[in-house]
């Protein structure tokens, strides 16, 4: 014990007179480990604490405070009481000691053992003895932290202080300037307001002392270590100002005043603060200020130059309206909401009668914002506005005016989340149903495309609301839509009609089944598309074909419901059947359109089980048997059915694969078994019309006939898109035959499809010896063929190699590096080099029909990045080692890879790649130039810092390319130069004169598209470093 106390005295001595700061930690450790108590420390400090030298006293208090900061949690109540009394007393001491005293008090305020009454006495002495704003930054922060700690733990006691607490805080914070402390001060003010401290006569003082910062304009210094943003301060202050309705009488005039400001940020902040008030305030607080608030909001929307201000103003209006909607009606006073909306309607409604003038839109937006605030407000606004608008529509004759009016109506039709009628309450539109429908149907009957499009959108919105449209209305609407599908050839109208029909058919299937589908079917099978001998007859024929295709697409878009799918899919199947039989004749384009419509249908169905069954049971077997019939018939007779054409088969693939990907496990297993039996054994028993002759040998490559072997693409569609849970039966035999077909067939479509199918299967196959065995065997064969320079089947082997590499790369299979290395080595191959470069495009991009995520393929995330990280150095080495005439192949491969990387990776890798990309820009191959430019342009839009070192090289190459003989290169170059104008001004300003001089030449380019880009780029470059520019 004695030893301890001498040690303690030594410690104190060393700290106080020896100025050794580290001793504080030792002392704290001593107290924490129980070697001595805090009171013993005070005793040991005795002399220094009572010294007449203020510096010594300061050191003494500093030591005590530092120890307290470490061990405040272990103090007893008695000790705390003594220490608090001591510290309170010390506040009266010399100003140099105050910082240490405050640190000690801050530690004590965190004590859980703080005795009753201490909190109040600490605060009283603080407020009495300390001039907070004359302290330094860190000490002020101490004071705020003391307040925060005490508010957390001693709320009741502080509330007992009454308004004195608020007054003390107001005095303490008045004049604070540091953003870090302001955040603390706002937190305290927020606590005062939200936790119910008594404000009484100091309400205005508290408001003044916080609102003087409004609106906050703060730009953090560069490299700010504290990371305080303007946004943080704004939100903290807003929480204070909008926290209580008692501030309303002060805040609302302030907001109105700040809305007059020229600063856009001040306006936006004021409007957002107003919107934040609305949920807290009631009618009482707002009523006095409503007219001025409204006129400010109206002014901002009517005259705004900025979308931000406009949006904020509309949100504020909506918030105000919804606040007033909550006001309880009492019998003798006027309805607050009605009164306010009358104001709004009076100022805005008459502008809606002038659809040509500018203010029609701002007025409509204001009214729509007010209407969207609540059910009641939408009721009032719709009742006032809609009849007027509809009447206007009927009295105007110009299409442009009618369109504007209808677009305005559209804004009132769609209820917002807040104005959606509650269960059991009817839609606000019900009283206007009849006149609305008559306007809509007349608009649909107009010949103006814009009007038709708007009308379909309104119709869609109307149809979404339950109970608005009656059955006859929907029927009339369906008739109009049908007519538009049949007659309107404008692409945008067709799109809008398809969307509208799709949306309505989900809610009202019967009229579509009974009216739209039969009419479209009649049209599709009307007279065959005759190919005229002379041009005159050909044109209407083309129009008819376009119409038939529109009908098929429309059929697909209305088939999201099983009942409709079962009506419309047979029509499309019948198209394929007729095309195969040759009567009535359908062109290949029409057949492809039927296929893509079927695919749309399958994609829309998603997980719908009923439609899945339908596809499994009816559509897929039908498609397979048609293709099979066509193939067999093509072998025998000379004339070929359109279903043997490669384009048609390629269109069938997505239909089957989309449908198969969505099948449930049980159906999928059955599908796999059926498909494998058909292709391996020629067993067609699951197809409806299975009277085929016995010699179906789909996977055998026959030298002169490929009609059967090309059907392997359909096998791929069936088995490569099934879910993971499904095992494909007899997979080894299947893989063997696919390998054989892909290596020996001479028909490109057949061997490519076989390679794809092979790849799709090995991508999903479970890892293990079986898989590795197959892979090694195939790889040996490919190697052998490729090594034999004279072999006729090198291209086939190469194709299989590419697809296999992709399948394995996607699943991170260890063998994939062997395959990709082989591809790299082929870049120097005499005949295959260019194709090998293109294979990298295949590896890096998503292929549409196989090995993608929608086919349930095993695709690891970020495989592209990984591939790039592992292989970019090989490319660079290969490039450096290659013969000059061979270098472009490497650049081509590189640009394929880089183009497909995600942007973040591109940006990260740019520093290392830039030299090579610059090299590629000066490479003579135009394809390489173009692909490099396309890769650079998006990167330049958000340029990485690494670029600035290379600007000179980049500019000289780009500016040289503006005179390229290829127009596409010129265009892409100019886009890059345009993008470069966004770089920080100081980096590009030195190039301005040069760029402007060079860009003057393409202004006179012979191609208009080049001139257009040159004008855009040069215009932006003129603005750099010029007043009013960026």
């Amino acid at each position, binding site marked *: 014990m004695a030893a301890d106390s001498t040690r303690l005295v030594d410690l104190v001595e060393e700290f106080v007179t020896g100025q050794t700061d580290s001793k504080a930690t030792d002392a704290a450790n001593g107290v924490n480990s129980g070697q001595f108590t805090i009171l013993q420390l005070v005793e040991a400090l005795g002399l220094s604490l009572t010294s007449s030298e203020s510096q010594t006293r300061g050191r003494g208090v500093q030591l005590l405070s530092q120890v307290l900061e470490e061990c405040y949690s272990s103090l007893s109540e008695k000790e705390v009481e003594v220490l608090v009394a001591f510290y309170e007393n010390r506040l009266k001491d010399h100003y140099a000691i105050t910082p240490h005293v405050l640190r000690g008090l801050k530690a004590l305020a965190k004590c859980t053992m703080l005795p009753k009454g201490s909190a109040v006495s600490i605060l009283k002495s603080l407020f009495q003895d300390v001039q907070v704003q004359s302290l330094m930054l860190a000490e002020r922060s101490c004071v705020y932290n003391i307040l925060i700690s005490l508010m957390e733990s001693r709320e009741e006691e502080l509330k007992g202080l009454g308004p004195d607490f608020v007054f003390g805080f107001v005095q303490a914070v008045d004049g604070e300037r540091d953003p870090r402390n302001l955040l603390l001060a706002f937190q305290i003010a927020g606590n005062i307001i939200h936790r119910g401290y008594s404000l009484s006569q100091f309400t205005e003082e508290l408001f003044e002392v916080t609102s003087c910062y409004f609106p906050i304009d703060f730009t953090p210094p560069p490299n700010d270590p504290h990371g305080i943003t303007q946004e943080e301060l704004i939100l903290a202050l807003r929480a204070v100002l909008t926290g209580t309705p008692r501030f309303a009488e002060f805040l609302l005039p302030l907001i109105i005043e700040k809305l007059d400001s020229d600063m856009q940020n001040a306006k936006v902040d004021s409007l957002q603060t107003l919107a934040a008030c609305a949920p807290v305030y009631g009618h009482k607080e707002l009523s006095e200020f409503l007219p001025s608030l409204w006129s400010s909001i109206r002014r901002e929307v009517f005259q705004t130059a900025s979308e931000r201000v406009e949006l904020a103003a509309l949100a504020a209006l909506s918030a105000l309206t919804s606040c007033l909607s909550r006001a309880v009606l009492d019998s003798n006073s006027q309805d607050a909401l009605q009164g306010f909306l009358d104001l709004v309607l009076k100022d805005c409604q008459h*502008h809606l009668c002038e659809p*040509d*003038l500018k203010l029609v839109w701002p007025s409509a937006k204001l009214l729509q914002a007010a209407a969207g605030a609540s059910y009641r407000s939408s009721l009032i606004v719709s009742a006032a506005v809609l009849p007027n608008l509809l009447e206007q529509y009927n009295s105007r004759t110009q299409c442009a005016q009618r369109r504007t009016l209808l677009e305005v109506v559209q804004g009132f039709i769609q209820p917002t989340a807040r104005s959606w009628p509650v269960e059991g309450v009817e839609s606000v539109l019900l009283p206007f149903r009849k006149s609305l429908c008559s306007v809509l149907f007349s608009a649909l009957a107009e010949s103006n495309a814009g009007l038709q499009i708007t009308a379909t959108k309104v119709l869609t919105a109307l149809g979404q609301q339950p109970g608005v449209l009656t059955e006859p209305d929907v029927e009339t609407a369906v008739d109009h839509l049908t007519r538009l599908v049949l007659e309107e050839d404008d692409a945008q109208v067709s799109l809008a009609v398809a969307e509208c029909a799709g949306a309505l058919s989900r809610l009202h299937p019967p009229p579509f089944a009974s009216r739209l589908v039969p009419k479209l079917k009649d049209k599709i099978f009307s007279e065959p598309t005759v190919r005229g001998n002379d041009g005159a007859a050909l044109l209407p024929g083309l129009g008819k074909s376009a119409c038939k295709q529109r009908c098929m697409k429309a059929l697909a878009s209305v088939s999201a419901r099983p009942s409709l799918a079962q009506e419309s899919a047979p029509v499309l199947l019948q198209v394929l059947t007729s095309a195969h039989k040759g009567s009535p004749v359908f062109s290949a384009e029409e057949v492809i359109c039927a296929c893509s419509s079927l695919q749309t249908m399958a994609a829309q169905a998603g997980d719908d089980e009923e439609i899945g069954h339908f596809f499994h049971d009816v559509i897929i077997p039908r498609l397979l048997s048609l293709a099979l019939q066509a193939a067999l018939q093509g072998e025998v007779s000379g004339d070929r059915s359109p279903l043997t054409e490669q384009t048609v088969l390629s269109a069938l693939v997505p239909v089957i694969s989309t449908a198969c990907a969505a099948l449930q496990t049980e159906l999928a297993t059955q599908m796999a078994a059926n498909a494998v039996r058909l292709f391996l054994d020629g067993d067609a028993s699951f197809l409806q019309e299975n009277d085929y002759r016995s010699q179906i040998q789909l996977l055998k490559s026959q030298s002169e006939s490929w009609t059967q072997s090309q059907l392997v693409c359909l096998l791929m569609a069936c088995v490569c898109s099934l879910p993971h849970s499904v095992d494909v039966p007899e997979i080894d035999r299947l893989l063997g035959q696919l390998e054989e077909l892909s290596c020996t067939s001479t028909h490109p479509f057949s061997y490519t499809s076989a390679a794809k199918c092979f790849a799709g299967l090995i991508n999903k196959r479970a890892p293990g010896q079986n898989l590795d065995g197959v892979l090694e065997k195939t790889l040996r064969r490919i190697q052998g063929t490729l090594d034999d320079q004279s072999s006729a089947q090198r291209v086939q082997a190469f194709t299989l190699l590419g697809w296999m590499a992709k399948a394995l790369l996607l699943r991170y299979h260890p063998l994939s590096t062997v395959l990709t290395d082989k591809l790299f080595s082929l870049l120097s191959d005499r005949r295959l080099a260019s194709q090998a470069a293109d294979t990298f495009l295949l590896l890096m991009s998503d292929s549409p029909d196989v090995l993608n995520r929608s086919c349930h393929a095993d695709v690891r995330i970020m495989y592209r990045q990984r591939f790039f990280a592992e292989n970019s150095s090989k490319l660079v080495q290969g490039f450096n080692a290659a013969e000059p005439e061979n270098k472009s192949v490497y650049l081509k491969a590189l640009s394929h890879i880089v183009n497909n990387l995600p942007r973040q990776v591109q940006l990260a890798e740019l520093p290392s790649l830039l030299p090579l990309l610059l090299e590629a820009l000066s490479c003579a191959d135009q394809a390489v130039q173009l692909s490099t430019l396309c890769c650079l342009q998006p990167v330049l839009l958000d340029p990485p810092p690494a670029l600035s070192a290379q600007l000179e090289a980049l500019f000289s190459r780009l500016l040289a390319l503006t005179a390229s003989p290829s127009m596409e290169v010129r265009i892409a170059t100019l886009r890059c130069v345009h993008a470069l104008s966004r770089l920080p001004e100081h980096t590009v300003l030195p190039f301005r004169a040069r760029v402007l001089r060079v860009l003057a030449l393409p*202004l*006179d380019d*012979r*191609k208009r598209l080049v001139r257009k880009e040159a004008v855009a780029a*040069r215009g932006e470059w*003129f603005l750099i470093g010029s007043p009013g520019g960026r």
Partner: protein
Amino acid sequence: MSWGARLENANPLIFQRTGERPLTASEEDENVADPIDDREIFDLIRSINDPEHPLSLEELNVVEQVRVKVNDEESTVSVEFTPTIPHCSMATLIGLSIKVKLLRSLPARFKIDVHISPGTHASEDAVNKQLADKERVAAALENSQLLEVVNQCLSTRPA
């Protein structure tokens, strides 16, 4: 905006914008030369912002395609513009913006003439004279405040 809080014409007539020029096959054909035509000049100036409203000159009908004439062979361009009201104090500024836009966007060989449509402005002659005077146009662009306003009119609106 810096000049005058009140707009001279707060609720002007709005006209529809023409769509993008449709792309023709010959424009994409490397071997065909496309001459500079009226529409191309109109496309250059139609998207210039009005100094007062957040609207383009086309939407305010200040410029129209029929009032744009170009002769590619003789390298001349003539643009007439129509202020929204006869006393519009912005007329000179609008004319200057059009002129500057054309100077920046056309090959140097062109002679550019910008003037007010006859009979649509109170001080038509004075404005036309100003716009035709090369020295005065150059001097105006030396004035950084004026240049700032012109640049704002010419900057593409953030989408």
